[in-house]
């Protein structure tokens, strides 16, 4: 399924190299804050890749995916609040809760289709958002600052996430792992089932696949990966707030997926990069940048629906 296709592959390698080299490039060109932007790009890319799995490959339009960012972030934040800073406890728990809540939410939502699915995923995200807002102990609306990043230590070997450079490459490594993982999944037997479900669910049931089980597992996997992005985000910003799971964040995630090219493994990385950079540039030009950004998004939907990946290749199967 992986084929070398010149402009596409070169472009993707370029982006990855750009990410890898940014801590060196940024100070060189005198724009040190670019490292922060790329940090956010990579974290959002992880979240967007997870959404692409259910949206681009599985055809499930979830308008509540940002809830997992909140679940991951808040698990970390709450544990840190109670002075549990061991990453080996925080991270598995964050992923576990993401998975469990993903399973519960998914079990209800996947009974619906189309617009109902969009609305019910939005509704669940709202519920969890309100849970965060009402959690006065943890800052409610205003959010809560976290003073300690996750500590990872085995014996005398430790990973200091407080060091920006280390944290940057740790995130980069995680993004590569997620890319590799999702690439494997979409080309595996499971991935073929998911893609078949999007293509023709009726036929899938006729040939013997039970849609519910597979879609649910896919939803849970996507939730867990997004929870990972959430705990990364909370660490990176040293801050958690219900805003992480605001429904507009879910909308932005969908946009990143569409911008980069829905149904491609690497697309969300490009989408995240373009989205965040555009936001950054525009917001520096004018305080009222949504006046331009909003119509831009509309134009993308109207005229560049297949995203950046669509600019490169004709209709193609997914590959890395």
């Amino acid at each position: 399924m992986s084929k070398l296709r010149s402009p596409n592959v070169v472009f993707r390698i370029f982006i990855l190299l750009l990410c890898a080299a940014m801590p060196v490039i940024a100070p060189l060109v005198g724009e040190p804050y670019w490292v922060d932007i790329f940090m956010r790009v990579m974290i959002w890319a992880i979240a967007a890749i997870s959404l692409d799995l259910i949206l681009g490959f599985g055809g499930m339009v979830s308008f509540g995916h940002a809830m997992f960012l909140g679940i991951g972030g808040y698990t970390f934040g709450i544990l840190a609040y109670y002075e549990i800073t061991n990453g080996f406890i925080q991270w598995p728990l964050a992923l576990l809760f993401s998975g469990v809540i993903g399973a519960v939410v998914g079990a209800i939502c996947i009974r619906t289709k189309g617009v109902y699915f969009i609305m019910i995923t939005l509704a669940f995200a709202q519920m969890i958002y309100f849970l965060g807002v009402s959690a006065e102990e943890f800052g409610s609306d205003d959010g809560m600052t976290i003073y300690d990043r996750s500590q990872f230590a085995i014996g005398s070997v430790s990973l200091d996430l407080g060091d920006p450079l280390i944290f940057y490459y740790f995130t980069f490594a995680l993004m590569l792992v997620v890319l590799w993982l999702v690439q494997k999944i979409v080309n595996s037997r499971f991935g073929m089932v998911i893609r078949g479900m999007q293509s023709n669910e009726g036929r899938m049931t006729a040939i013997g696949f039970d849609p519910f089980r597979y879609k649910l597992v896919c939803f849970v996997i996507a939730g867990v990966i997004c929870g990972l992005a959430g705990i990364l985000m909370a660490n990176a910003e040293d801050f958690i707030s219900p805003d992480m799971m605001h429904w507009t964040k879910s909308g932005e995630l969908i946009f990143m997926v569409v911008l980069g090219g829905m149904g491609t493994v690497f697309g969300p990385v490009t989408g995240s990069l373009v989205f965040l950079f555009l936001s950054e540039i525009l917001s520096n030009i004018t305080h009222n940048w949504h006046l331009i950004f909003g119509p831009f998004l509309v134009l993308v939907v109207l005229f560049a629906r297949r995203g950046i990946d669509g600019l490169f290749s004709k209709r193609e199967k997914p590959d890395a």
Partner: protein
Amino acid sequence: MPEKILQIQGLCKSFGGLTATDNVNLDVFENEVNAIIGPNGAGKTTLVAQLSGSLDPDAGQVLFAGQDITRLPAHTRSHLGIARSYQITSIFLDLTILENAALAVQAHDGHSFQFFKPAAEDRRLIDPAMELLERVGLADRAHLPARVVSHGEHRQLEIAMALASKPRLLLLDEPMAGMGPEESQRMTDFLQSIKGTVTILLIEHDMDAVFALADRISVLVYGRVIAVGAPEEIRANLDVREAYLGEGEASDAGS
């Protein structure tokens, strides 16, 4: 004494004021080819949908090898040995021909909660899939996206996918729909080659194919079975001729 593999008892289905299936009773014997014919709008596809599990009947029972499958979901029926091809092509247009066939094979090769090994390199899927494609004559088109091949090739793929599950009962809904004479002949020859190895419930308008293949013919008009019997009996049956005369020459001319 051949076994009754499919027993349809008192099956009823209405859509608002329209009765599509009107108390249908039909027995199908193992390994026979039972062709269902009837004018357009007789409810043939509705009947097949209730047999395959994509539509719930209002009343009645369907027994498969003695087991009540009336309310079972489609995917369960597939694993019991029922396979279906569609009148309006229903394949995976986004995938290649080979991927289509491989998916159909995969559905019956254990569970699919396998996340790492690439499906395209899985010989347990690819080999049977290629074999199926060869049987229906699509082997050389295997790597083309399903979207780009011809309508006739879509119909061939339909059959291949239905056969992938090694079914005991094949529900074929107008397999020759939209095919020219040469393609229809090829399809008829192919169905001849598998006749007797699997039970086939064949819905078709192409009378040449029907009379060439069928062991028995069932005639469905306005949701009711008005006659069942050997081809010669049906040909001579007055009720049948009347039902078809109403349709004009269309039925004799084939698809």
